């Protein structure tokens, strides 16, 4: 990376750059801010459980009802997870499509911009 003629100087400069560019913390409320925005994302609605009615005489029936509710809830949760996953995949697919269409545009543009003059750089 560094020019051989300036090697010791470049090493010194690079060392100082690393020291100068150490990462810094964001403000104190940063994580809370992110989680607040995440909380606003669609969440699966919790289906209220039917309260189990404990009765020696109706115990079998109650257990069946609770089991059916739990299974239905499980199905609901799984369905919601599948839906959220499908949504994520949809967004990713659209992002990739957009990116590659942009790529084609850039390639076309770079040919149109191919100018005789050299770019002088930074």
């Amino acid at each position, binding site marked *: 990376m560094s*020019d051989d003629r300036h090697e010791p100087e470049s090493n010194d400069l*690079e060392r100082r750059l690393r020291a100068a560019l150490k990462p810094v913390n964001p403000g104190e409320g940063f994580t809370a801010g992110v*989680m607040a925005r995440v909380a606003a994302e669609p969440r699966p609605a919790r289906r209220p459980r039917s309260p189990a009615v404990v009765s020696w005489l109706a115990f079998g029936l109650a257990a069946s009802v609770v089991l059916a509710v739990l299974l239905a809830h499980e199905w609901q949760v799984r369905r919601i997870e599948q839906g959220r996953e499908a949504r994520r995949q949809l967004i990713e697919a659209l992002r990739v499509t957009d990116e590659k269409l942009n790529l084609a545009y850039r390639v076309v543009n770079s040919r149109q911009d191919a100018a005789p003059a050299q770019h002088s750089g930074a």
Partner: protein
Amino acid sequence: MSGDGECTGGDLLRRALAGERAAFGALVRTHQRMVFSLALRMLRDRHAAEDLAQEVFLQLYRSLSAVSSEAHLAFWLRKVTAHRAIDRLRREPRLEMAPLEEAQLSAGEAHSRDPILERRLRSLVAQLPPAARAVMLLRYQEDLDPADIARTLRMPVNTVKSHLKRSLAELRERMTSSGALT
């Protein structure tokens, strides 16, 4: 590794993928310094950097299934942060023209051996064109090698090396002419 007890980064990722928001919060705490610092030094504006960094994590939350491992997560965060910052600079030229708020850019000066020189270096890096700036930050803040920088920025490796060489030369010249470096 994280602020979440004994959990490894891989555990956090798995739990976050399973929908556990607390685990996702721990991932944010783990990586927020890196994301925010990249954004800050690209955009030169603390408010804009916090906003962009939050958007990156929100996008991560939405795209978490695309992340396959902890290493991939770091790569993904750097990539999205850098691209978003470059895109934002193109859309908001005022960020490029805003006066450098050096107090915002400074970091850890109390522990720095030469705070004035380091502040000057940060200022010069912040004045580089966006793509060169991103390359320099990924190299000297994130310690990536040119191949990884090329992958992150979707740039040919030779272009990365060219940016590094020219940027270092420019920094050296400006530091030398101002007497900051001998």
